[in-house]
């Protein structure tokens, strides 16, 4: 385990020198956190309770809102739309870090000396994966914490803030987020094994975001309605996908293949 942390520390020292990585890790979560806060604030300024009716909202929300008033339900509906933004953070950050981390090793030809040390492939891969996943999860949770704190000041009532701790949100932020980050790292490892340009690897690996964007727009269009059950299914599906992706990524990350085929 010590070797894994040695790799994680080195990765962070190295990748966080890159401005592109810093921008992605620091700026992206701030933007994606600021957007829902700003929208909530704008809906609050419109007037008091009663400006919205639950009849104005997609049918699923009536059931979801329970005892919330019209505006509170509208705010919760809006916030729920933007929950997917928080799920983009763990998808996008690992892709950037892992792409620079792995392709960087190829470019500087540092992989061979690294593989000549007594570390196992699993330790090496775990170190690289953790180095990409941890900042993503921290940024997601940090963004959510900022959002949950700031939401107190812009929602119409504490009952909306209380909904941020319901199973839907907890599952999305604390379970689906890390699983998405893992999927993202696996995708980055796979793409990086065939790429010699970190930006190209990053762009190709960003394909992992497409299903989430589909969900996002599907929800805005009223075609999909995110609820705790659906998010739980997402988590279960992601866990299975992660296992498959990880196995495939580890398969690509064989020492011999790295040394003889990675060009």
């Amino acid at each position, binding site marked *: 385990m010590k070797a894994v942390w040695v790799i994680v520390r080195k990765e962070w020292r190295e990748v966080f020198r890159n401005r592109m990585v810093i921008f992605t890790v620091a700026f992206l979560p701030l933007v994606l956190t600021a957007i829902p806060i700003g929208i909530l604030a704008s809906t609050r300024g419109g007037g008091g309770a009663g400006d919205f009716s639950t009849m104005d909202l997609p049918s699923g929300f009536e059931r979801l809102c329970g005892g919330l008033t019209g505006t509170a339900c509208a705010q919760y509906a809006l916030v729920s739309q933007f929950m997917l933004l928080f799920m983009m953070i763990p998808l996008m950050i690992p892709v950037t870090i892992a792409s620079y981390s792995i392709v960087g090793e190829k470019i500087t030809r540092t992989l061979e000396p690294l593989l000549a*040390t*007594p570390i196992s492939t699993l330790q090496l891969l775990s170190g690289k994966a953790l180095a990409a996943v941890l900042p993503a999860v921290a940024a997601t949770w940090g963004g959510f914490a900022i959002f949950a704190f700031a939401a107190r000041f812009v929602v119409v009532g504490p009952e909306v803030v209380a909904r941020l701790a319901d199973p839907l949100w907890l599952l999305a932020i604390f379970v689906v987020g890390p699983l998405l980050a893992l999927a993202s790292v696996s995708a980055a490892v796979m793409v990086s094994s065939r790429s010699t340009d970190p930006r190209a690897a990053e762009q190709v690996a960003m394909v992992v975001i497409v299903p989430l964007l589909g969900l996002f727009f599907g929800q805005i269009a009223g075609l999909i309605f995110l609820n705790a059950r659906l998010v739980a299914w997402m988590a279960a599906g992601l866990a299975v996908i992660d296992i498959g992706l990880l196995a495939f990524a580890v398969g690509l990350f064989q*020492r011999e293949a790295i040394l*003889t085929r990675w060009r």
Partner: protein
Amino acid sequence: MIQTENLTRRFGDILAVDRLTVSVAPGEIFGFLGPNGAGKTTTIRMLAGLIGPSSGQATVAGCRLGRDDTTLRRRIGVLTETPGLYDGLSAQANLLFFAELYGMTEPSAAVEHYLRWLGLWERRFEPAGTFSKGMRQKLAIARALLHEPQVVFLDEPTSGLDPEAAHLVRDFIAELRREGRTIFLCTHNLDEADRLCDRIGVFRQSLLALDSPAALRRQLFGRTVVIHLRAVAPTFAAAARGLDFVHQVKEVDGKLLVTLDDPEVRNPDLIRTLVAAGADVQFVGELRQTLEDVYLHLVNAKEKPA
């Protein structure tokens, strides 16, 4: 310390290393010479447990290849073909990273020792990316030695270094031998191999020759005496050819080049014969074939087997 038996590696249809059988003793500097693409780096990678052989076997530092490669890698140091440093990290951070990966108990002390030894201590906080080629190579050498390995594989250690830095690295390699480490040295610098190596193996997919540089010279070219004469006459060469221990006589630029067995014993007879034939002998010396001659002879012979 290193023993290989019919070690072979194929990449698809390409035969990179063909039945390499070699034994390197503890404390020996073994020179591994061969042209680009001969399979030297593949051999090092196999011996370092980085890639597996297609067939054959090897034992390095007491570890059988493929059985416990993690222990093997702990016991060896590898200087790869390219320095492979983390450019964004300082010299010290580069070395500390590797020292920690090797699980060293006092990584800082070892890092300081090698940085001082190689003259990089004053620049330890500077990013490796700002270093000259020579400094980078020295840093890579330090990385290969940090964990005090029993066997060190050096792939082109003086490649691209200025004469002063190359000299420092050669001294360093000689120092490693004094410490009893076994060194497997790949180099294109034949003068370096001649000066440093106890034995050399000339390699091109398979081993073409294996012995000490001096023995290889003897085997391939015999021993040749150079005799400087005041004036050369055809009768002198004929007189030398008449001796049964003389293999070959050539006349070059007013000198006789005589190839013979055991010059220490036979030279007096040879000189007496030449003087009796009327030659005025000015100087007598031995023609030293360079390792380059040996190398080119062997490699070209392999290229043109006919």
